[in-house]
């Protein structure tokens, strides 16, 4: 990811892809890939075992993080 930002100072030029917030994206990548967190039946939610409802809840984690990063790094034109 060692891409330098543009330094030629032209107006309207893109400012590169770097933002410390990008590291947040690691959370929704790592957490859903850790079975000990969710590989159980109890506690259930509305009768649905943990394995299923928690993994569906990870979708919310993914959406929240990507939305946050998108909003923070959005380019206004």
């Amino acid at each position, binding site marked *: *990811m060692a891409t330098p930002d543009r330094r030629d100072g032209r107006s309207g030029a893109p400012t590169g892809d770097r933002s410390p917030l990008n590291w947040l994206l690691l959370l929704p990548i790592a957490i859903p890939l850790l*079975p000990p967190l969710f590989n159980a039946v109890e506690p259930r939610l*509305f009768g649905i075992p943990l394995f299923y409802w928690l993994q569906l809840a990870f979708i919310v984690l993914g959406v929240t993080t990507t939305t946050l990063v998108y909003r923070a790094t959005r380019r206004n034109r």
Partner: protein
Amino acid sequence: MKTTEIVIFTLLFLLVSGLGFVAARWRRPDDLANLNEWGLGGRGFGGWITWFLVGGDLYTAYTFVAVPALIFGAGAMGFYAVPYTVVVYPMVMLVLVRLWSVSHVHNLVTPADFVRVRFGSPTLALLVAITGIVATMPYIALQLIGIEAVLKTMGVTGDLPLIIAFAILAAYTYQSGLRAPALIAFVKDSLIYLVILVAIVYIPAKLGGWASIFDAAKAKFDATPAPGDGITLNANNQLQYVTLALGSALALFLYPHSVTGILASRDRNVIKRNMSALPAYSLLLGLIALLGYMAIAAGVAPIGKDNNTITPQLFDKLFPDWFAGVAFAAIGIGALVPAAIMSIAAANLFARNIYREYLNRDATPAQEARVSKIASLVVKVGAVLVILGIDPQFSIDLQLIGGVIILQTLPSVGLGLYTRWFHRGGLIAGWAAGMAAGMLLLYNIANPATKHEHFGGSAFPLEKLGFDTKITIYAGFLALIVNLVVAVLGTFVARALRSADGPDGTRPEDYFADKGDPRVHELETTAPAS
């Protein structure tokens, strides 16, 4: 024969076919005869269109039929589709905007186009193109299985309906290009969302609630002798679950049809915003997966030994006839969108990276588009022949192989977006080693349940490598590791031998150019991909 269901299915199918033909006039370009227009819909799709298009492209009819079938048969393992489609978006968010930018600056249409410019190697580009075409073909064929499962449930037999459906699809794709699936995706996805939302409220209520659904599933798996099934994972298949989810996520955006969907979008913001909006489809997929357990609880049996029929069978048993017809149409139309995009993507690869590179170097944009249109027809005829002529199980095996082989383009396409460190010779050697390793691993996976001695699945037992364990791992993941190791070693060797490396046609700032950047337009008109 189920008349109500067939009538509704046919009406919706005809409506969508009409849309497919009308699409040629939607956002009408001055001239449809070039790949930017025919193959990428004008490269100007905004947030909503991209959401429907890419969602309709990635979450295929086959997925909607096969994932519940997998859950029905094996339980928790089949749920890998959920973590897979959760991790993919944060993982590719930054990668895809780079691909979009560099493709925009250099007027690239396919992933192989990028490799050609980045590594200056027509050979490597050809390998990437062929890998893409070979991996996509069985995927198109599988969409037919989705339609077939629905037709079977409605009691429609014979090959003719399937041939007619694909002929119509071929005709409007030929005429309208990527605009056809983009427009149809609106109808397809609205229908699917409607059907699933109704299904997850209506069916559990009829079956006595979620708890009893999962209890029924547990009772079924407890009763079977198979050690790998159950409503949670066991000690031996957790690694397989994780590597399959991760490996599939890495592979997803290497597929040419995913790249086509992404390159058709208007600017970088559209892509980024979609990475947080597309998981709505993952939620849908997770809920669809649970249909497999509902089928167990409802006592639904597949037609013959074809587990792919359990979702349509479930709808048929529990929904009123008219709504079952709507549900079947959703699945049937659901096959058309990805099939169209996949055939366009495969055709673009042929036109760009084989026809123009090797057969006609001076091809005009119009010639290129014409070749691509014809190739899209050939690809679809091939898919129909494969499904009708050969055991459908063969396409399923091929698609499994497809996932493993497309992953072998990761070092050149995926890592290539970040680094030019690899030598083209190393990448070619890595690709070859990864392909060979992948084939060898898949060949050695047996499946007693389907009486397959070879190519019986993607879960490779580590026992076969001499480890004293019952743990399994995703074959594609191991093959990718082999690929990477060889690519690194090969790069060192090539450098040591002072072997000539190809020129890099891209500059660092190309990777974050955006629409409106004045330099982009200047380059677009002066520098075609080569």
